[in-house]
């Protein structure tokens, strides 16, 4: 009981801190980085839902981000659809595509799913680059209007900050709710052993499709928001490298841990901005990080038995040892 209240309190404090950040940070540049962080955090959460909770190694997440982004950009630039509708429709579009792909892969085993998602990313990349009448080819789509809700335009960095924060908080709440529900338990059962899950009466194929669809909706929405923020849809933002980088965000924080995804995204978005050298070597760094994490902390920073819990474990052990020693001393006296 106390624990839950404490948790709630710390959550409210964190939210208040996030809300007051634009007043503390006056530098526009850092606000912009935080905005990028919030949108990517949603992508990392959706990856965590698919890879961390359901165990489906999806390596083509940025394709769905691209689908959402292009859908939203085309709708609002070429057809003049208002932001709110374009935003929702891009989520629906990405979700439907995800459902179709999930349906096709419903029986696929591990390797094939990874291959199919990589292939899907390549196909999307080729389409973005070459379908010039629709996607604008290499030039991309520019002059995407900034998000606005019924006359209120989120055109400055600070205004967008609140929109992105609200989006992240809502997505986090929904994904957290999903993972705590029957659906989330089914996902985890499939991840741990799909054959056993099937024997336990879980409709594995249905839940796999559902998992893919829900994840894709969030990725598409994040893509839409990011394109309205940068006001430019570029085909080079949705490559396979980008997918791997996003995957690493979820892995670094810990597969199966939602706060972990936020931490992982924060590290991989903010650190490259802090130093030029880091930015240049970021893919090398990500490679080394991937191997080292898998060898020593396969559950990431905040996952089960991850770095966080190990640190706590060390502290507990030290405390226990100290007490034992104290006990020995007392016994001698």
């Amino acid at each position: 009981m106390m624990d839950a209240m404490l948790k709630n309190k710390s959550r409210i404090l964190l939210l208040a801190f996030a809300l007051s950040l634009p007043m503390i940070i006056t530098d526009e540049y850092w606000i912009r980085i935080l905005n990028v962080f919030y949108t990517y955090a949603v992508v990392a959460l959706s990856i965590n839902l698919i890879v961390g909770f359901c165990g489906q190694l999806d390596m083509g997440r940025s394709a769905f981000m691209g689908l959402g982004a292009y859908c939203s950009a085309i709708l609002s630039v070429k057809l003049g659809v208002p932001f709110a509708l374009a935003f929702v429709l891009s989520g629906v579009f990405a979700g439907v595509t995800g459902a179709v792909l999930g349906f096709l892969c419903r029986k696929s085993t591990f390797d094939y799913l990874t291959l199919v998602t990589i292939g899907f990313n390549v196909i999307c990349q080729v389409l973005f680059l070459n379908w010039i009448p629709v996607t604008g080819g290499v030039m991309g789509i520019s002059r995407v209007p900034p998000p606005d809700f019924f006359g209120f335009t989120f055109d400055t960095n600070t205004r967008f900050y609140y929109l992105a924060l609200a989006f992240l908080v809502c997505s986090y709440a929904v994904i957290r709710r999903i993972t705590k529900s029957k659906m989330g338990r089914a996902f985890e059962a499939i991840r741990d052993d799909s054959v056993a899950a099937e024997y336990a009466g879980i409709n594995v194929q249905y839940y796999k499709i559902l998992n893919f669809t829900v994840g894709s909706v969030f990725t598409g929405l994040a893509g839409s928001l990011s394109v309205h923020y940068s006001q430019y849809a570029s085909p080079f933002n949705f490559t396979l490298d980008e997918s791997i980088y996003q995957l690493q965000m979820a892995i670094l924080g810990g597969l199966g841990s939602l706060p972990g995804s936020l931490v992982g995204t924060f590290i991989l978005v903010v650190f490259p901005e802090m130093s030029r050298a880091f930015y240049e070597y970021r893919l090398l760094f990500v490679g080394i990080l991937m191997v080292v994490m898998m060898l020593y902390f396969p559950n990431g920073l905040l996952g089960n038995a991850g770095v966080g819990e190990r640190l706590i474990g060390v502290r507990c052990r030290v405390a226990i040892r100290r007490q034992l020693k104290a006990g020995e001393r007392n016994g001698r006296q």
Partner: protein
Amino acid sequence: MLLQHMINGLSIGSVYALIAIGYNMVYGILELLNFAHGDVYALGCFVVLGLITAGINPIPAVAAGVAAGYLLNMLVERFAYRPVRFSGRVTPTISAVGVAYIMRNLILKVWGPETYPLRLGFRGTRIYLGGIVIGTLQIYIFFAAVFFMLLITIMLKKTKIGQGIVAISQSIPTAALLGVPVNRTISIVYGIGGALGVIGGILFCMYYDTIFVGIGFALGTIKAWMASIIGGVGSLKGAIIGAMILGLMESLVAGYVSTLYKDAVIWLALIMFILIKPQGFFPSQIAEKI
């Protein structure tokens, strides 16, 4: 014209085949998606390039490159795959992706993203057969692929270490109980895979007359993987035939459909193929392990 496209396709296919053999051997035995295969052999090929630019005779340079591929893949296996061998599917795969990124970025840091010519002092001539052009190099590459396939098949069937590899591919604990040195054998499998990859990569570079960092992942790992899946995981014959089919498909699609959408069409076809026939044309005889 159709015949010419088919000949081109087969010769591209035979290059893919050499890469796919090494890949499929590892893939079939350990069921690890070796994402790093292409980038490891790319590093080996760049070692060859570096030695040749340093003025060393091509033959020892290639030999050194092959040895580098062998050692590099062994090292990678020792430090990145062996510790996670028994921790599910996701963990080793991600570790392999990480290795791929390390290798690729090492190449990018040393040699940059430029395209270099790779001159081995060996040029094929062309044979003209009633309007069709066949390069002699293409024929050599094809026979090299078949030669290595036969060599490995004989090694698997006739030598002690080959039988050890077969035993490991069926069950690691049983193989260990029967006295097969599991770790050493697996490390040799990786070494051979890396060495074959470098040979394939060098032939690939000779075929296109260039070397650049993309030969690793986009043209190596991915094509080898596609070929393995078309042919059947774990089957050497399947790897060669799958690579030929892949080459033919690429050449025909580029010739008759569209060069711009070639990759998209190939991927689409492959995805459809996976959905229809996930075991490939020559499935290995081992049942899926639960």
